[in-house]
């Protein structure tokens, strides 16, 4: 509760206490030599003694001061130093010039340390000898100053002014506290009293908080007035006040006014000052903390610096920079993160019309537009799709990274803008591109199977605020939702156009120039983008649920991470690997980038289910897929699952046959060792069969022979069902690359399988159980589980399995538990 005795800790902040209370240290300084010594320069012994005397001056009166000072300062003016509290006696003597006498008696006086005359001189000496001390001493506060004033000592003009300033400060501080406690309804403009104005004169802009009267929320009537004739200066000031108050709401609030009233007022003021519509401003207020909000709005008023990208197909950045500098352009490399970017500060020639530009040596491109291409990292000889390519900056960047190899399909739905794409690509010498004019949503149908896809989703134009300020006001909820809907469709089409089994790719970068979660705005160029959080992350989250994709790190090591939760929404945790860029923090247009990796070409079915009995497990699958991905289990699993699903759906008949084959094999192989290899070998073929077993419930072909076994197996496949259903639901694709993945993990568990074989063999369900090890490793794990429960449990197991989260957890725990039981 007491004041802190730490003299070095400086009080900061706009609050009263920082200004007013100087803390115990001010009193301590008088007593503790160490405190002031830190601040002052190294003093001579005499100076130190003088300082000590000064400190003790108030207590010990004039005596302690100054005799030592007298000696060194004989010839100085007889004007006394302001110095320290309580040197009252000697001060009066200052007026008498005693300099001449000084030297002689000085030696004696040192020891005496008294003498009013000497005090006067000493005081003066104090002033000159240790003017630095004077600074520290002056900080003691109004007390000494006021006392000095009363003394009427002759001071230098500067000292007098300084003292007056201190006095004003003190007065203002006192007044400020008085004002705060008043419950005034005055307008803010009516800054009362002498206090604040005085301080203003003295301090200039320093104590901005002091000269304000406590901000009072204008009553409702005044708000209406503002709407009619807003005075921008006033509004601006009010914005600053409210932000300051909200920052320290407990201390600065006006009684009787709630926080939401302040916020509403702030919102209106911001809308007036920056000309935003209410809706958009509300979104932004949700998104940013207040301090950042103002910065962001300010940043949106100013266009971002012009940046350009060197076309490495035709020149080098060094050469280009040299050539442009010769033409009179003031530029710099863009940053460590870009090897081809340049930022233009100013230029004496039009930067978009230099011969170098016309020759295609560079392209004007926003800095944030370079990021998605860097994240996508297209490799040579790949097939890339750029779904919304106009005006072609990103497309050409990709082409230059690929060194004109491979194929890029540049598509845009807007015919007018496509012309600029054609022009730009020709100019830059890009030869590996096909330009088409489709609606992006038609994509996988027209042509699919790309190694990588870039989707720079269109926005409703709110990204170009600095270009089209009307956007601030004419966007509302409907526009945003419409946009989000379009973006979701485009994203799904883009995902479907990626070939997950591509050797070098399988990636999709989704980016927008929007910062809103809800809205992804297209970044055209020097514009303030939107940062709607809800839609960016929301769209990405939607995609994660609907398709077999997962988020991967973008490879961009700067930028803010995406949101995993926002207000009442919760998003997938991997959204942390997305990136957001803001104009006020990164000095580039706002941007949102997410990089997906597609791990399976199958499309998870919606939860209608493929088979009757499989329905509960089918329902599990969509959740299981992301979970399995998130649980950092290898993508192999999912791939394997997906693959088997595909195989399942396609190969019903062969499955039956191989199923029988499996049974034959398993029957014949009672020995553990033999079963293991056969198991693993046949896993590929059997995997889909096994997985089809639960699915097989729906497939009539197998029914006669399979159903019995299926039913018996179903309990065993409890957790493996998940994998099975994963496979089930995957549309047929069937590439063998996935089976090895499945096989390898299963092999790790193969060692356990023989043991499992023993026990299952001993049981009635030997055949089927033998097949369990053939199943992918997951199934093997569950096999152990299943071995113990077996028959009686199938009815109980399946309903349990239908609940989604528990199965995921149980899977692992049960397998471990069971394995321990079995093996021990």
């Amino acid at each position, binding site marked *: 509760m007491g004041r802190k005795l730490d003299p070095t800790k400086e009080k900061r902040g706009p609050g009263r206490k920082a200004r007013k209370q100087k803390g115990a240290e001010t009193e301590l300084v008088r007593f503790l030599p160490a405190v002031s010594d830190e601040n002052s320069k190294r003093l001579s012994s005499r100076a130190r003694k003088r300082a000590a005397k000064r400190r003790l001056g108030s207590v010990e009166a004039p005596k302690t001061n100054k005799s030592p000072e007298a000696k060194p300062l004989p010839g100085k003016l007889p004007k006394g130093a302001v110095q320290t509290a309580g040197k009252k006696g000697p001060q009066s003597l200052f007026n008498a010039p005693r300099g001449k006498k000084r030297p002689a008696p000085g030696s004696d006086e040192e020891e005496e340390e008294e003498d009013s005359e000497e005090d006067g001189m000493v005081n003066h000496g104090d002033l000159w000898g240790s003017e630095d001390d004077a600074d520290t001493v002056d900080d003691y506060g109004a007390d000494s100053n006021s006392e000095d004033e009363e003394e009427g000592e002759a001071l230098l003009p500067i000292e007098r002014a300084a003292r007056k300033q201190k006095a004003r400060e003190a007065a203002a501080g006192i007044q400020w506290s008085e004002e705060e406690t008043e419950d005034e309804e005055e307008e803010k403009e009516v800054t009362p009293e002498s206090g604040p104005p005085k301080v203003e004169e003295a301090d200039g802009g320093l104590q901005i908080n002091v000269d304000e009267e406590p901000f009072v929320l204008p009553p409702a009537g005044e708000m209406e007035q503002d709407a009619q004739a807003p005075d921008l200066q006033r509004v601006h000031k009010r914005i600053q006040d409210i932000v300051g108050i909200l920052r320290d709401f407990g201390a600065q609030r006006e009684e009787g006014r709630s926080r939401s009233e302040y916020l509403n007022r702030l919102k209106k003021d911001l809308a007036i000052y920056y000309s935003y519509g209410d809706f958009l401003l509300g979104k932004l207020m949700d998104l940013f903390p207040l301090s950042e909000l103002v910065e962001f709005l300010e940043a949106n008023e100013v266009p971002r610096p012009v940046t350009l990208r060197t076309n490495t197909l035709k020149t080098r950045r060094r050469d280009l920079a040299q*050539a442009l500098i010769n033409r009179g352009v003031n530029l710099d490399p863009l940053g460590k993160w870009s090897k081809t970017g340049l930022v233009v500060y100013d230029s004496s020639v039009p930067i*978009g*019309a230099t*011969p*170098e530009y*016309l*020759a*295609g040596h560079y392209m004007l491109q926003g800095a944030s537009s370079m990021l998605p291409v860097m994240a996508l990292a297209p490799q040579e000889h790949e*097939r890339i799709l750029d779904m919304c390519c106009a005006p072609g900056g990103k497309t050409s960047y990709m082409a230059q990274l690929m060194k004109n190899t491979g*194929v890029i*399909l540049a598509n845009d739905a807007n015919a007018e803008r*496509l*012309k*600029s*794409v*054609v*022009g730009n*690509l*020709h*100019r830059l*010498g890009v*030869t*590996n*591109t*096909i*330009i*088409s*004019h*489709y609606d992006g949503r038609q994509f996988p149908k*027209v*042509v699919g199977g790309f190694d990588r896809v870039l989707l720079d989703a269109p926005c409703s134009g709110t990204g170009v605020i600095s270009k089209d300020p009307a956007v601030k006001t004419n966007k509302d909820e409907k526009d945003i939702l419409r946009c989000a809907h379009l973006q979701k469709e485009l994203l799904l089409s883009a995902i479907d156009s990626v070939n997950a089994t591509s050797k070098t790719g399988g990636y999709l970068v989704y980016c927008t120039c929007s910062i809103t979660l809800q809205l992804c705005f297209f970044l055209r160029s020097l514009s303030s983008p939107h940062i709607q959080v809800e839609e960016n992350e929301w769209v990405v989250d939607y995609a994660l649920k609907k398709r077999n994709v997962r988020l991967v790190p973008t490879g961009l090591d700067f930028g803010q991470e995406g949101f995993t939760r926002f207000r009442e929404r919760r998003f997938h945790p991997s959204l942390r690997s997305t990136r957001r860029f803001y104009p006020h923090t990164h000095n580039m247009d706002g941007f949102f980038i997410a990089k997906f990796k597609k791990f399976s070409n199958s499309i998870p079915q919606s939860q209608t289910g493929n088979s009757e009995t499989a329905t509960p497990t089918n329902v599990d699958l969509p959740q299981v897929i992301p979970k399995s991905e998130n649980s950092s289990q290898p993508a192999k699993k999912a791939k394997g699952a997906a693959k088997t699903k595909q195989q399942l759906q396609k190969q019903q008949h062969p499955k039956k046959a191989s199923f029988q084959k499996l049974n034959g094999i398993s029957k014949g192989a009672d020995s553990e060792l033999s079963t293991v290899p056969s198991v693993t070998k046949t896993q590929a073929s059997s995997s889909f069969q096994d997985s089809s077993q639960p699915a097989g419930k729906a497939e009539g072909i197998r029914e006669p022979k399979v159903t019995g076994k299926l039913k018996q197996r179903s309990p065993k496949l409890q957790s493996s069902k998940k994998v099975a259903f994963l496979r089930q639901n995957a549309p047929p694709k069937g590439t063998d690359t996935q089976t090895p993945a499945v096989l390898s993990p299963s092999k790790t568990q193969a060692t356990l399988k023989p043991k499992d074989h023993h026990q299952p063999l001993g049981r009635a369900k030997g055949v089927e159980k033998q097949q369990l090890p053939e199943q992918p490793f997951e199934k093997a794990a569950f096999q152990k589980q299943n071995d113990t429960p077996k028959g009686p449990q199938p009815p109980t197991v399946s309903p349990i399995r239908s609940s989604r989260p528990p199965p995921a957890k149980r899977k692992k725990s049960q397998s471990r538990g069971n394995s321990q039981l079995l093996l021990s």
Partner: protein
Amino acid sequence: MRPLTEEETRVMFEKIAKYEKIMKLAANISGDKLVSLGTCFGKFTKTHKFRLHVTALDYLAPYAKYKVWIKPGAEQSFLYGNHVLKSGLGRITENTSQYQGVVVYSMADIPLGFGVAAKSTQDCRKVDPMAIVVFHQADIGEYVRHEETLT
């Protein structure tokens, strides 16, 4: 507008052959939706003359036998579509015949466009400063001026 020389023809078809792979992929795209494929060299007019576009400059410039360099002051004028006057002429390849197709360069060796020599090299030395020495055919300024018609 001028017939392609043998060399230019060969070069053009070489380049086109490289597009085969891309063409196969582009076959998927229906005709009305395909906007551009590869690099457009030029277009055939209704009377079956072949008009060369500036977009072919990248490919033809390295193979140009006859070159014309223009002074920095005349660059801008040429980029606006004007012909080159003697006063703007910097260098010209020796033994350029009249009406020979040439590639126009800046003094920094940046190809600026195509032209036709209005005078042979010998004549260029004799003629007065305001005479036209190179007829303008295509220049890179068209990327900005004629974006719409670039194809």
